[in-house]
Each structure stands twice: as C-alpha cells, then as structure tokens.
C-alpha cells in the first residue's frame, strides 16, 4: 500500500467476480467510493480487513494487480446554479461537451426528511390532460409513475406533462434511455425554450447497466438542493425505473443474494422507497414531485417491479390504447392519484369528485355491456347508452391529446351525462344535480 495525497493505494486484488472484486485494506468506510483499474467502484461489504467493492462498469479485464484507490467519501454530486441547462452521465460528468461545473459537493442518498417537517401537499399541477387532471389529479410533492407497456408513448406523455407543469426546475434521470429517446428529450426541452430550467443525468443503453443505479439518487440530491436551499418547485422525471430494478437484480444475483419474487432482491421495496420518498412538500414552498415510468411486460402489474412500486407511490397512471377510438388513453380503472382528494372539489369546482366518480362508474357499466356483447347477448337500452357514452367519454376526456382546463372537463362530463342518462342513473348528490345538470337534457 502506498499513499498519494491522503488517498490509500492498493495493488493486490484477492478475488474477482463478474460484479465485484475484493482485497485486503484497512480504514475503509462502508459505502466509500474507490477507483479500480480506473473504474468507479463502491464498498459493499467489509469483513475484518477484507473489503468487497462493486465495480459499476463491470470487472471485465481487471487484473489482480490492478491499482485500487479509495477516495475517502461516499458517492457525491456537485450542486449549484451551474447545473441549469446541463446534461450529465450517471457520475455527474458532463456529456454535452461543455466544461465541468463548479459547485458544492454533496453526498447522494442522504437521510430522509423528518415527517413532522413536511407539509401536506395541496397545490394542483395542471396538465390539460383530462385523464390526469379530471380523474387522477396531480399535486406538488407527489410521487407517481406511468405504468405502460413498452409500445406506449410514455416518454412523450411524460415530456408533455413536464412542459405544461409550472415547475421551476425539471430534472431528468434517464436510466437505460435509448439514444433516440435521449435526443427526443433534448429537443423537446430545447424547442420549449426551457433549457435553463432543465438538468439531466442520463445513463443510456450504451452505458454499462449497473451505472444506472446511481442515477435516481444523484438526480434527487440535485433536486433537494433546489427544493431546500432555493425553495424551488422541482419536478423529477425518472425513466425507466424497470431498467433500474433490472440492474439491481443483476447486482444482487452476482453477489449471491437469495432472490425473492421474480428474481428481484428482497430489499427491492426499501430500495425503491428510498428513491420515491424523496418526493416532498416543504412548508417554505419548495417541493420535489416525482413522475416516473415503470414499463410493464404484457400489462402485468403483479410482477414484483410494478407491484412494489404501486405499494410505494401515490398512485399510478396507466396508459392503454383504446381501439374503439384509436387513441392512447389514461385508463380510468387502473389509474389512481391518491393525493387528488387534497385538491379536487377544494382547489377545483365542488362538483369535481362526484362527476369524476359517476363518469368512471358509467364507464364500468359500459365495460360490462361490452363483455355481454362479446358473449353474444342482446344489449338492453341502458347498455347501448353506456356504450355510446363510453366512446364519447374516451374521445373527449380520456385521450391523451385532450388539452383543456378543469372547468371545461367538468362541463363536458355533465354534457355527456345528460345526453345519455337520466339523473337517477347518474346518481350524483341532489344539490349538485340541480346546479349543474344542463337545461336542454332528456330529463330537465
């Protein structure tokens, strides 16, 4: 061992596996960073003087006499105003051809906010998309993923939501992003003239998968800087969290951990929670909102990744293609925003909760009618009406190309109710019926 500028240097590795290497070393801190043969690594296990390092970009070609330098600190990221408009890799190194930034170095994956220092979220995020604003209203400080099959346009919808949300700062955490999608986000941000509000930490498909494990916490440490130190409203976009989880399972399998369901590590829940729970509303006005993408395989939400995600996040937005209208919709059955009740009918018109629920209930009746039809049965008059309603509802409210304000969404809802149903069939509180039921309807 020799020392160089306070750093300890070793050159005798005793064991190498696909993901890790081990050596004799002393005075090393848990989770400390190191360079192994010029590659970044992190301490994942210490037993006596034997230290095991996880090498992020893989151990291919590392010799037993490789130089190992311990850096004396856990993973860090530089934060500051200079981050604005910049694109970085998973380690925080610029990938936009511009120089390194100066800034304060902060540990990533720091402690959690004291729950009593949080504020209850109450600020609505308007997106113009009725499938979101009407049925699954978003609130600052919320954490919510899109659940979508890989063929759904989730990145486009997420980018659209980000551009319309009135955030002070948008931080993109890209994991396993295809180069095309990376360029897509870049051009969306540039075209919207929003570049000064954007920061991106990106791991593309061309980078080693394990590196992406650093992306969410790096992005969130930057988010905490803007939300806490500068009281800004920060929106964090994480895509694709399924690829993040896949990297977790690669590591845990290589380290011989006992896998639990779907070969995911047993600590998947805690790991994802440490990311998503960074979403927060502070009393000072600063906030972190997380919108993520979890891609599904064949719509299966019982798989361990969407399942654990659903147990952590405050709802999910489910994208699906509605073949009746040939458009992508936000599925009202499987989507949910759990924070919507903090704002609907309070920050929005009083009829919002009931219109939302009645419409979804009638849409469910239409789904039953469709099943009946598919089974070859005659449809009742009511069934026929629900089907007509469903098509118009889907087209004018659920489709992701809708862009109107919440009052217009509610008015549209009432119009559809009165066009197809009686008041009794809609079943909304009498006071609201009297106030909002359109005059020129079947049952005045």
């Amino acid at each position, binding site marked *: 061992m020799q020392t160089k500028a306070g750093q300890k240097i070793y050159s005798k590795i005793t064991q190498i596996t696909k993901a890790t290497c081990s050596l004799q070393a002393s005075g090393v801190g848990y989770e400390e960073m190191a360079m192994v043969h010029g590659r970044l690594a992190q301490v994942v296990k210490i037993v006596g003087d034997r230290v095991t390092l996880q090498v992020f970009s893989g151990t291919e070609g590392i010799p037993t006499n490789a130089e190992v330098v311990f850096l004396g600190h856990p993973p860090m990221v530089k934060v500051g105003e200079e981050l604005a408009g910049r694109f970085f890799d998973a380690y925080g190194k610029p990938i936009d051809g511009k120089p390194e930034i100066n800034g304060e170095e902060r540990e990533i994956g720091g402690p*959690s906010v004291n729950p009593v220092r*949080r504020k209850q979220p109450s600020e609505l995020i308007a997106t113009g998309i009725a499938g979101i604003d009407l049925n699954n209203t978003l609130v600052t400080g919320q954490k919510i993923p899109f659940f979508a099959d890989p063929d759904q346009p989730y990145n486009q919808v997420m980018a659209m939501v980000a551009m319309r949300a009135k955030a002070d700062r948008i931080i993109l955490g890209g994991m396993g992003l295809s180069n095309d999608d990376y360029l897509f986000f870049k051009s969306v941000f540039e075209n919207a003239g929003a570049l000064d509000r954007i920061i991106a930490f990106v791991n593309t498909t061309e980078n080693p998968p394990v590196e992406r494990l650093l992306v969410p916490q790096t992005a969130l440490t930057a988010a905490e800087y803007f939300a806490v130190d500068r009281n800004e409203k920060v929106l964090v976009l994480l895509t694709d969290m399924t690829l993040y989880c896949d990297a977790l399972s690669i590591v845990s399998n290589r380290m011989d951990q*006992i896998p639990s369901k779907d070969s995911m590590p047993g600590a998947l829940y805690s790991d994802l929670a440490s990311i998503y729970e960074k979403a927060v509303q502070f009393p000072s006005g600063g906030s972190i909102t997380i919108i993520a993408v979890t891609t599904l395989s064949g719509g299966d939400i019982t798989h361990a990744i969407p399942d654990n995600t659903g147990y952590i996040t405050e709802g999910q937005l489910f994208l699906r293609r509605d073949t009746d209208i040939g458009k992508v919709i936000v599925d009202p059955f499987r989507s949910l925003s759990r924070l919507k009740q903090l704002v609907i009918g309070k920050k929005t018109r009083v009829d919002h909760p009931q219109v939302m629920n009645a419409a979804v209930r009638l849409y469910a009746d239409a789904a039953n009618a469709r099943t009946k039809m598919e089974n070859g049965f005659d449809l009742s008059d009511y069934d026929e009406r629900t089907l007509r309603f469903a098509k118009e509802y889907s087209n004018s409210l659920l489709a992701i190309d809708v862009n109107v304000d919440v009052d217009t969404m509610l008015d549209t809802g009432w119009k559809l109710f009165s066009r197809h149903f009686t008041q009794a069939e809609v*079943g909304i509180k009498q006071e609201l019926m009297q106030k909002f039921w359109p005059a020129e309807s079947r049952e005045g």
Partner: protein
Amino acid sequence: MATTGKVAGIIANLVMVEVDGPVSQNEICYIDVGGTKLMSETIKIVGNTAYVQVFESTRRMRAGNPVEFAGHMLEVTLGPGILSRNYDGLQNDLDKMEQVFLQRGEYTYPLDENKKWDFVPIAKAGERVSAGSWLGEVKENWIGHKIMVPFAFEGEYSIKSVAAAGSYGIHDTIAVLTDAKGQERTVTMVQKWPVKLAVRAYKEKKRPFKIMETGTRTIDTLNPIAEGGTGFIPGPFGCGKTVLQHSLAKFAEADMIIVAACGERANEVVEIFTEFPELDDPRTGRKLMERTTIICNTSNMPVAAREASVYTAMTIAEYYRAMGLRILLLADSTSRWAQALREMSNRLEELPGPDAFPMDLSAIVANFYARAGYVILNNDQPASITFIGTVSPAGGNLKEPVTESTKKAARCFYALAQPRADSKRYPAIDPIDSYSKYLEYDEVQKYLNEKIHPEWVPNVYLSKDILLRGREAFEQINILGDDGVPIEYHERYWKSEIIDFVILQQDGFDKIDQSTPIERQRFMLDRVLGICKSSFKFDSFEEVNPYFKRIINTFKQMNYSEFNSDKFKALDADLGKILAEREVVHAN
C-alpha cells in the same frame, strides 16, 4: 463494567462486533462512527462475535469502530405525556428534532421533563400493591393517566408513602414502596419496559363479548370487530387499506388510538399530523389528536426500526390498557415489518422459508397478535387493546406467507377486493370472502341482539345470504344472458345491489356518510331488508334495472343527509312512494 467491542464486519445494516465480555440476545449497543453513536440491537451471538442490526445508515462505518453495550434490551419510556405525540419507531420525539432532515444518531427524550403534572393520590400508605397497581393519577389531556407500580417490579410491596396531591415533574418521587425483605424502592411517574416482552399486569384475559363500533357499516353491520379483538386488512395496493384505517382512527369507539405507520408513506402520516388536530372526535367533541399517538417509521426511514416500531406501539398500548382504558392499535403495514425481518434473515444467511421469509414468521406474527385482548386488571377494572393490522400481499395474492400467517392469528378478516376498488365500490371489503369470527360467539350474538335489536344477528346473516345469492344470480345472468334467465334473477341481483350500494359502500370523504352510528345502521338495514323481503311486479327484465336504480339513488341521498332530518324523512317518504309503485302486497 459494561461490555465493549469493535466493529469486525459490515454488510448493509448488519454489523459483526467482536466483544470483550458478556452480551445478551437483543441487547442494545451503540457503535461510534466518527463521534456519532448509532443505536443497534444484538440479534445473534456466535462465540465472541455479536451480530447486530443497526437502526441507522451504516455509511462511513469502519472495521475497528468502537462499540459500547448498554446492558438492556430495546425499551420504551412510559409516563404521562405520550398522548398526542409523534414518535419514530424507537420512540424518539420527532418534534424535538429541529432539522429538516433526520440526523443520524440523534435521539430525543420521548417525554417532557420540564412539565408539571397535577397529581392526585389513589392508593394510601400501608396498602399492598404489585406491578401495575394504581398509586395515583394525573390528567393527561382528558385521560386520567394512572401512575402505576412499574411493571418491572416483581412480587408484592407495601406502600410506605404516597406523595400528597400537588404539582410534580415526571422524575419526582411519587411513592416509596417496601418489598418483602424490607428494602425500599422509590417510584416516579416514569418507568421503562422492554418492547419485545408482553406486559402481564392483569388478572385475566377474557373472551371478547362486546362490539367496538367503528362507524364503518360494512364492518359494524356485516362483520363486527370485538372490543379487545384482532383483525387484519389484506389488499393489493391502492385498494383502500390506509383510508380504511384512518377512518377507524377517526371514528372508532376507543379511549385512545395508537397509529403505527410501519414502512409506509410519509405523506400519509403528514395527513394525520395535519388533519387530526383540526378534526372533532364525534363522541367527546374534543380534537381527535387529543386521543391519538403516532409511531412512525416511514418506508424511507431505517429498515431495522420498522420491527421496533410495531413493538413500541404495542408496548405503549399495553401501558395505557393497564390504566383501564380501551385502546385501538392500528398498524399499517405489517408486511413491511415482515419484509424487514426477511432482509435481515437473508443477510444472516438463515435457511429461508416460503418466499424467503424467515421460517418462524407465523410464530412471530401470532405472538404479536396475542398481546391484544380484553383483560380484567388486578383491581377488577376491564380494559382492552383492539388490534387491526394491514397486510400488503405481493402481487395481491392472498396465498403469500404474511397473509397466511396473519390469517391464523387474527379473528377478523377484511379482504379488500381489486374489482371492488376498480369500480370505486369503497370501502372495497369483499362482503363474501371477509369474515368476523366474533359474530359466531354466543356472547357477542347476545350482546348485539340486546343492544341493537332482538332480530339483529339473524338479519345480518340474512343480508349475507342475499349478497351471496345476488352474486350467483349475477353470474347466471352473465352466462345465460339478460333474457335467458327468469326476471326473478334480475330482482335477486338488484336486491343484493341495494345492500351493496346502501349498506356496504360508504363515501369516506363525505362529512355525513363517512361514519354511521349503530342506531342509524339499524334503521338502514331494517329499511333495506324490508325491500329485500318484498316482491315486486315486473313485466320485463328491462324494467328491473331502472327501478332499483331509483331506489338506490334515493337511499344514497339519504346516506348523505343528516339522520332523521326533514330532508332525510322526505327522502324516506319518496322511497315509500317508489316502493308502492310495484310492491306486491300479500294478503296474510
């Protein structure tokens, strides 16, 4: 001299410590990482190596870091001032932590050491006492908080002196006791107790016989929970476990509510912090927060403290039960605790059981549920802990180990069904799969029939039958088609829908509908069953759906109206008219 040691190995929050003296299983120790002392618990000992789980992040910890053992297990501090407080899983007072972010190694005292309490003696010098005996009382919010002989005092004592009525701090001497050998021991308002051990300061545990009213109709009417009973709520994510528990916390008939938020979302706890101080307790008119204590270890807080959090909550519940109170303990979600056990068991490389959970999971869960119960204290006062936990089954599959283990331990099963939640039929408790074992108890049936109505229990069973037959009719209609079945099938289905829409479904966010007193539940069930028992005249199946929808709609407006208000009565009269349109009157 206290045992010390040095860190020998670190794998996440499992740390191996080489020790220089005796260590006990579950003993607490503190690991010094650069001057910050991290609390840990011994979970396994092999030779000179103690395996400890650290209740904090182990970042920057090094081999060789010094460790001090504390000589006791994980314990809670019990005394006046617990009510209305917000604790973490280790009973640190969160409000005393000034910073925005939780600081590793910061531990705060759970009680207020400066506050003076007005003490009134209950016991007199010369009386014989034992652990849990009431020596005096202070007013904590509105509860008469008993100052007791500490639970750790074994055997009998005689009281040498009790403090006179007056104002005292928690550490002042309240009584002096003499044991059989003539040794004197002083008692203050504070005592400590190890959380993993059950408090046994009572005479007997009885079979529950009373119902705990919750205000949630699908529970109270269909599957009531007994005071001192146990129940659990399994359900896939987003089906309403937390909303239901919050509703129980708001409206259940209990003297004190302890909410253990175990490995769930911080925003859900913030909701309680924010809303409970503003909301009125419908029974006492006081603020809900006055009867509530929160133990929170949210999902991003250290994993090892999740297990501690449920035990901390239960021990606090036992302490207040010993004062003769009715406690409702809610834990959301016990699956997160089981997962924490699994993470640790895997790190210890123990032989895994099903789904890699520890082999003894069932026993751990059963032991925990067994700490609830309806007890008769040594002074013959009744007291109870009712415990309701939630379970978050992986993939929504109720055949997984945590659900199965809990099913063996809990007496009420409130299964939340995804299809009900999807169609917004809240609370999404499946009326057919769910059950309450207490409904079968003779003493519970007797209690219900006496308290509510002589025919209550038979009517509850009748409602269950109607729901079941309704579901069967619905399936037949789906198989054979609307006109492929007799009209009567439609009627049967729609009668079950009335029970569903009017009794089972309840709007958790409506001021009136969110909680229904039992008297009103009796009225509504009576009305609904009246309709279910009647026959109606229909010429075609097409008439059935719109007719029953009108009935249901009128009922729903009733549910939204003040009980017995003019509006309520007017709607009831409307209902009578709708029924008269088609009801077949039998001459008998």
